[in-house]
């Protein structure tokens, strides 16, 4: 087993009191917390100070740690023979046990009272984010996750069920690290995010997209082919459709995983040709002369009152 200098990790003297240790730890935790800093070495540093503090904050663990004496960082050593009994596994080898695991187990034994035999330990849980396309969210998908665990790099294929949405959390039971001494295997926690789609914007299981209409399509109504995740369908645009109106295609959104689907919304905006042909200009002029429609009439009335 390799010795780790927990006092040096926290930058405190070996006779520091509990309050000084806590203060030093919190200061470093703020500096190296993964929510604050994302670089690889800060993650390792955060783990190191966390491990040091977990032992030094607990008077019993700290006393046991102090029993090991002062050694150079990383030096190989054997824990005192009576620790095997304390650890609960008479004659059990410490070879594949990390110093932090050892103190963790000692702590558990003390909390759990006078048990005999090895202490059951749950396998490690893993948390990871997975980005999937809308199409995969709709149909479900298999993704490969890479983990760094005790045994090194591990790739695990997991199945994302159909019906996930942005921000969905899933728990994959028993897919995490192996439990020890009869403890249950750990879990994997997945945080799903959806990759941006060139057309659709998801809102839970509903989908939104922008539908550009020519002025005459908006005025007269039209049957327009629009995209859905399952292929194009015909949408009836009613006459006198205003810009900003939402046209709903019921059940054409994302699958919700329970047999149903969200809705698909076409958000209308009325587009104009960049330049008008002479004929188009004439027709618009004719329309302007013939129509009594004033889109600002309501606003004008409100202003007057």
């Amino acid at each position, binding site marked *: 087993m390799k010795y780790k200098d927990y006092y040096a990790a926290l930058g405190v003297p070996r006779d520091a009191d509990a309050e000084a240790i*806590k203060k030093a*730890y*919190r200061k470093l*935790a*703020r500096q190296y*917390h993964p929510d604050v800093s994302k670089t690889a070495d800060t993650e390792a540093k*955060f783990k190191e100070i*966390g491990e040091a*503090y977990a032992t030094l*904050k607990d008077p019993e663990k700290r006393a046991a740690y102090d029993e090991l004496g002062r050694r150079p960082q990383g030096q190989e050593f054997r824990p005192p023979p009576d620790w095997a009994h304390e650890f609960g596994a008479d004659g059990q080898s410490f070879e594949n046990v990390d110093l932090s695991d050892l103190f963790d187990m000692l702590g558990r034994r003390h909390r759990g009272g006078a048990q005999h035999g090895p202490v059951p330990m749950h396998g490690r*849980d893993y*948390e990871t984010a997975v980005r999937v396309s809308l199409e995969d969210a709709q149909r479900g998908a298999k993704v490969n996750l890479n983990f760094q665990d005790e045994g090194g790099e591990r790739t695990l294929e997991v*199945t994302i*069920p159909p019906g996930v949405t*942005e*921000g*969905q*959390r*899933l*728990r*994959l*039971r*028993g*897919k995490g690290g192996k439990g020890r001494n009869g403890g*249950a295997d750990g*879990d994997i*926690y997945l*945080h799903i995010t959806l990759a*941006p*789609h*060139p*057309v*659709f*914007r*998801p*809102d*839970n299981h*509903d*989908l*939104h*997209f*922008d*539908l*550009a*209409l*020519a002025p*005459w*399509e908006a005025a007269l109504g039209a049957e*327009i082919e*629009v*995209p859905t995740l399952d292929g194009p369908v015909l949408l009836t645009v009613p006459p006198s459709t205003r810009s*900003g109106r*939402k046209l709903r295609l019921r059940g054409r959104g994302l699958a919700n995983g*329970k047999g149903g689907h969200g809705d698909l*919304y*076409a*958000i209308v*905006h009325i*587009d104009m*040709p960049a330049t008008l042909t002479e004929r188009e200009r004439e027709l618009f002029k004719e329309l302007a002369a013939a129509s009594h429609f004033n889109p600002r009439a309501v606003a004008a009335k409100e202003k007057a009152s």
Partner: protein
Amino acid sequence: MTAAAQVAWLDARETVTVTELSRVSGLTQSELEELVEYGALAPVQRTQTTLVFSAACVAPLRHAVRLRTDYDLDLFMVGMLLDYLQRIEDLEKQVRSLKAQLPKHAHPPHHEGPEPWHEPHG
């Protein structure tokens, strides 16, 4: 166990017992009961023998418990964090929903997002 049974949806469609929540959060049952007393956790069902919670609380609770460990906070602080984390999640959901409903041209420039659907003119 089937593949489907191994996947738990951590949202309001599933529930967890206090025993299971204790397992996944790392808090003891009495700590969870204390959070219920603080009003930070609300059981969806309370029987004489157990408490049942919405599975939606699992992720924010695990996050709050991780922060507790990371900064050596007390249990009351976990309750406070849980409130705030759930509120942030709700607000993020609302922002996402509002963004989805905004037409593309109303989105801020340089936004990594979808392109509008254009029908050819006339």
